[in-house]
């Protein structure tokens, strides 16, 4: 029940951000879209799936992710049809399958995905901070550069979040964290 409440809350916030997404790509790509995916994740937080579903779910989540990573699709998400697709696909085709498959993936695969996420954020930062062209037609070049730096900050934050428990051990006040989301993105 609590989880359902959180789901609704996340979606509500995402909808409330509609105005912001038009002005700033950061609010769009780094706030609204993750909120939508998060809604899908918390919605199925308690559910468990069978092992053989893990890889199909992972592939589904990655495909959705890749789709929304492309700048032209971010542009499209500002049109009515694209917006609808975004509201449906991010929770249902990204957050939900990712959350369901995650505990079933091996620790090496999870570590690999995390490391890859860091590298890719770095690549995006690389490209967005320096591209001489507008990558998204809907946003200003200056906003695009801000987004690039935001990617880099996010990469740094995630790197710390994932590396600290490996370096220093799990904080004792987080007893069940270790079981659910073993960190190994050293």
């Amino acid at each position, binding site marked *: 029940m609590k989880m359902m409440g959180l789901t609704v809350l996340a979606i509500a916030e995402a909808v409330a951000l509609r105005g912001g997404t038009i002005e700033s790509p950061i609010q769009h790509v780094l706030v609204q879209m993750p909120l939508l995916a998060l809604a899908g994740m918390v919605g199925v937080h308690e559910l468990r799936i069978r092992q053989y579903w893990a890889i199909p779910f992972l592939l589904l989540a990655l495909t959705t992710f890749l789709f929304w990573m492309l700048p032209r699709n971010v542009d499209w998400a500002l049109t009515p049809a694209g917006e609808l697709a975004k509201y449906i696909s991010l929770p249902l085709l990204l957050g939900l399958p990712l959350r369901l498959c995650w505990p079933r993936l091996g*620790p090496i695969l999870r570590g*690999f995905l995390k490391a890859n996420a860091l*590298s890719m954020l770095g*690549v995006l930062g690389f490209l967005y901070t320096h*591209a001489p*062209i507008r990558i998204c037609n809907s946003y200003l070049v200056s906003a695009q550069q801000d987004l690039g730096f935001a990617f880099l900050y996010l990469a740094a934050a995630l*790197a710390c979040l994932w590396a600290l428990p490996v370096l220093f*051990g799990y904080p004792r006040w987080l007893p069940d964290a270790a079981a659910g989301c073993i960190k190994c993105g*050293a």
Partner: protein
Amino acid sequence: MSIAIEPGAGAPAATAPQAGAIKVTMILSGAVFTLMMVFGLIMRAAQGQWIELDPALFYQILTAHGAGMVGTAALSGAAILWYFSGRHVVLTAGIFWAFLCLFLLGVVLILGAIFIGGFGGAWTFLFPLPALSGGAWEAGAAAAFMLGYVAIGVGFLLYYLELGRQIHARYGSLVRALGWNLILGREDDNPPPPTIVAAAAVTIFNSIGIILGAAVLIASLVHLLVPGFEVNALLAKNLIYFFGHVFINASIYMAVTAVYEILPEYTGRPWKSNRVFALAWNAVLIFVMAVYWHHLLQDVVMPPWMLVVGQLVSYFSGIPLIAVTAFSTFLYVRGSKMTWDLTSSLLVLSVAGWSVGSIPASIDGMISVNKVMHNTMWVPGHFHTYLLLGEVAMAFGFMAWLVRGKTISEMGTLDRAAFGTYLAGAAGFVTVFLFSGAASIPRRWAVHYEEWLTHDRIGTVFSVLVVLATLVFVVRFVTRLGRNED
């Protein structure tokens, strides 16, 4: 195989190290080392104008030699570290095989890019050179080269994830495996042995290097295939040299575990972690990442403080660890009745070569010297010292140990001749490079002036010696493997 030393305090949780996979890897490493040395010999002979070599081909061979040697140094170092870490933690064999397959896939892509696609942009793939071939190669060749690096990087990432995971599982945290309890003077009922300290440090800094390296590789690939995307050239250079510096250094830091684990069989005294040892490794962990700025001393647009840090850290980077390792080696060897067989000779030589090589390296890390020496033969001079006489000697020493059998006996005539030839050849070869550097002969030139030919020719003669000795080491290893197997 009799192992005289006890692997770490506490009950060894480890199984038998994965000898089969490691032996296969060492055969491959030995073969590629030999082949790449022949490439080096060809380049040297061509510079000395003893043979005729099309400059385009020279740069392809230079690229293959650089990438191939760095890759093989890393491969052999990784095999050594995996083998000895297996004495202290349980490692999944499948991950090592996956690592090896990805590595070989990378090799195929790289060789194809160079010798089919004509890529000759050097192992450093410095932006934007891969995209500016002037017609010498197509974008596809450069892309294949970088994809080869990506494959190798993914392989290494899996390797370190598994290593880090198992160390974490056994020691609870990586800082404990880095010996922080020893440093802070806390109780530790199961202190990490030297190999684990090394493994933890390398896992951390090389993972960071690989993640950043992957970022710059993919960004360069995007630029190559979609030229509209520009990349900040200075940032790219920083990341490339961070990655390159960390990666090649890691190969030595992995291979040195052979010294920690094997020499005690000869000296009869176990090599234990202590506070100074742990401090040295923790210093390395920071310094190896902070020192890469010494590659950018010529980039006037860099913030000056970074270059100053690069210079200062260059003095300190190698010193703590080399000092601790070399000093301990010296003490162990002096106080015991060593039997000098091929293994122990090569391993002790490797520590000496590594230490000696760090001296010209630190000299080049001085901004005032670097202004003059930066692109001269001084640079290949110093890194061939600690690679040829350091890392490669460690790898050959490890190979000799793998096929040594239980009894340790003095070297036979052939071993003695091969060892002496290797030592003389390598020492002479690197000395010529250093002399050439002092004479301001530039590096990476396919065609040399008349006045430089004497240097090149003496260097060529010495490299023949190295190749001959290497052939003996590798053939000896392979034939004895066959004998030991049954």
